[in-house]
């Protein structure tokens, strides 16, 4: 084990693990996969010392199954994976959405499809993180753009999962996951921890899926004396399978209603130099780093360019764009995929501004110079 230095140079993956611990995560199940493995290694070391538990499962299907089981047992649970592993998790991710089990998946994206480019950066899983499972359900996806932000977003992810009884995905890319930077992290007592609401009524009155005014139902842990049923079948407020159309509607619509209610809180967006901007770069993950560098140089050259940084990708923070659409001539969307957030921007824009995409899927990242060139070309 490494000696603790007095200063902190931290890797993105390490920050995710630190954030998990700071948020009170006490259960991790996972399977080794590049480029996310450091998260499992660190938590294997650190969880038992903090009274938590770590288990290396036989595959990623088992990993997400185990964290669902542990979450039902009352643990704050998290797993970390990458491309192929995330694909394997999809079925049980759907289970957790329908059964409303709080959990966090950290997906450090790598080049795909299939085995793809295991050690190269990509942002190809944006749409998969939203639509990877079968059926309709909401999901929360956060995308950090620095090492320090990875720490804070992982905490936020755990808190949102607990509050909304919903899986949350921390969608990182290899650049953020593997880069090391100087960080200054708050001590754990300063970190806000949100805990799921537990039932306080007598067990015989408890209906595990009866939503309160918040849109979320209190969640008892197995073993707490509230014997109830959890299933991946569409269910009624008691948790029992139903084929009644009204009950099915209430179940599925309710999933969306709770997330819609929390929409503003869930959506993390930062605006940089947007006040007088005529052109906006929309970026997330490592593309924020290229965009910031480009922005600095473009502003220096006197161009009215700003940055809309998406910290939340799903639900898509459409208000962040709508707010600035009247003043924007061009929107530039650099992504390490063929235009996954670009499609969302197109959808929200509805013809207001010109939208330009910059795409890259060869395992390298888009440089500030490429963004500058595109923006200058549009302005001219």
């Amino acid at each position, binding site marked *: 084990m490494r000696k603790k230095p007095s200063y902190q140079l931290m890797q993105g993956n390490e920050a995710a693990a630190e954030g998990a611990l700071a948020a009170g995560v006490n259960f991790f199940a996972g399977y080794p996969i590049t480029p996310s493995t450091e998260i499992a290694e660190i938590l294997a070391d650190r969880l*038992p*010392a903090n009274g938590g*538990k770590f288990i290396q499962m036989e595959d990623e299907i088992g*990993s997400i199954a185990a964290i669902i*089981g542990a979450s039902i047992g009352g643990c704050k649970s998290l797993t970390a994976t990458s491309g192929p592993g995330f694909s394997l998790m999809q079925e049980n991710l759907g289970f957790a959405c329908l059964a409303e089990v709080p959990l966090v998946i950290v997906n450090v994206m790598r080049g795909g499809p299939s085995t793809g480019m295991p050690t190269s950066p990509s942002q190809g899983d944006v749409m998969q993180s939203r639509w990877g499972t079968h059926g309709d359900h909401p999901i929360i996806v956060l995308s950090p753009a620095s090492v320090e932000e990875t720490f804070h977003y992982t905490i936020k992810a755990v808190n949102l999962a607990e509050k909304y009884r919903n899986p949350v995905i921390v969608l990182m890319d290899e650049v953020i996951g593997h880069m090391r930077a100087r960080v200054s992290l708050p001590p754990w007592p300063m970190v806000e921890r949100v805990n799921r609401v537990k039932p306080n009524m007598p067990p015989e009155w408890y209906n595990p899926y009866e939503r309160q005014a918040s849109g979320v139902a209190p969640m008892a842990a197995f*073993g707490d004396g509230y014997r109830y*049923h959890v299933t991946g079948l569409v269910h009624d407020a008691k948790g029992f399978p139903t084929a009644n159309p009204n009950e099915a509607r209430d179940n599925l619509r309710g999933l969306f209603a709770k997330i819609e209610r929390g929409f503003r809180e869930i959506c993390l967006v930062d605006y940089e130099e947007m006040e007088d901007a005529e052109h906006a770069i929309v970026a997330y993950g490592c593309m924020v780093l290229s965009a910031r560098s480009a922005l600095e140089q473009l502003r220096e050259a006197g161009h009215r360019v700003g940055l809309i940084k998406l910290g939340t990708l799903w639900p898509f923070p459409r208000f962040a764009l709508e707010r600035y659409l009247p003043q924007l001539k061009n929107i530039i969307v650099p992504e390490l995929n063929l235009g996954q957030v670009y499609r969302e921007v197109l959808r929200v824009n509805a013809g207001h501004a010109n939208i330009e995409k910059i795409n890259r899927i060869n395992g390298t990242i888009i440089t500030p110079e490429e963004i500058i060139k595109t923006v200058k070309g549009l302005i001219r």
Partner: protein
Amino acid sequence: MISNSELVKKYFRYNKKFPHIWCPGCGIGTILGSMLRAIDDLELEKDDIAFVSGIGCTGRAPVYVDFNTLHTTHGRALPFATGLKLARPELKVIVATGDGDSTAIGGNHLIHACRRNIDITTIIFNNYIYGMTGGQYSPTTPHGDKAYTCKLGNIERPFNISALVEAAGATFVGRSTSYHTLQLKNIIKRAIQHKGFSVVEVITHCPTTYGRINRKGGAVEMLEWQKEVAVDREKAAKMSPEELEGKIVTGILLERELPEFCEQYDTIIEKAQSLDKG
């Protein structure tokens, strides 16, 4: 022993989700009955039991009984149960799973749970077929038998589940049939009391699919067949291989003591915490 009506009142969610979905003559309810009697004999608190299942006819068992019940995805009951057991080691975790659920789609989880020796009791309801989807061959369908995906006879060789889990490291293996309800109850009792990963394989019948396709008769005839082919372990020990041909050995086939996963993990926690302080 607890009477049927007391059993229903005490353990079933009788005023909620009945009638059940199983076909007339199905063996699943009988096995569930033996399990409940075992639990009753052991005087376990309902709050202390987590009953976990996968998908298929057997997967529907938990919804009807008044425990902490978890109906998971196809083949995945064991990893769900593993996470739950680690989170709540004080719970008695019992898994109900079918032959397809546990040895086809969930086969990998089964062997790894055996290897880990985590304190979970797994009851495998082996009826040689996929019943819920209408009668396709499973990893335990005997060679030459028919199913709707092998109408001309199964050309695959079946798993011997008890041998498989023993080789994979289970520390308790028992086998019985849905005919031998008393023996089954006693084996399940011992399995629940066993510290470590225990497997109880229960030979049962699906008159609706397997029985019909293979002309095995109805439920009664299929139960009579179970009665005929079952040989108790002690009796089998005195029989020649020729005599054992076509028989199914029942009873407690294996019981061994090895370190249990959750207990071992507790020592890891102690070690890590003392290192952390040091």
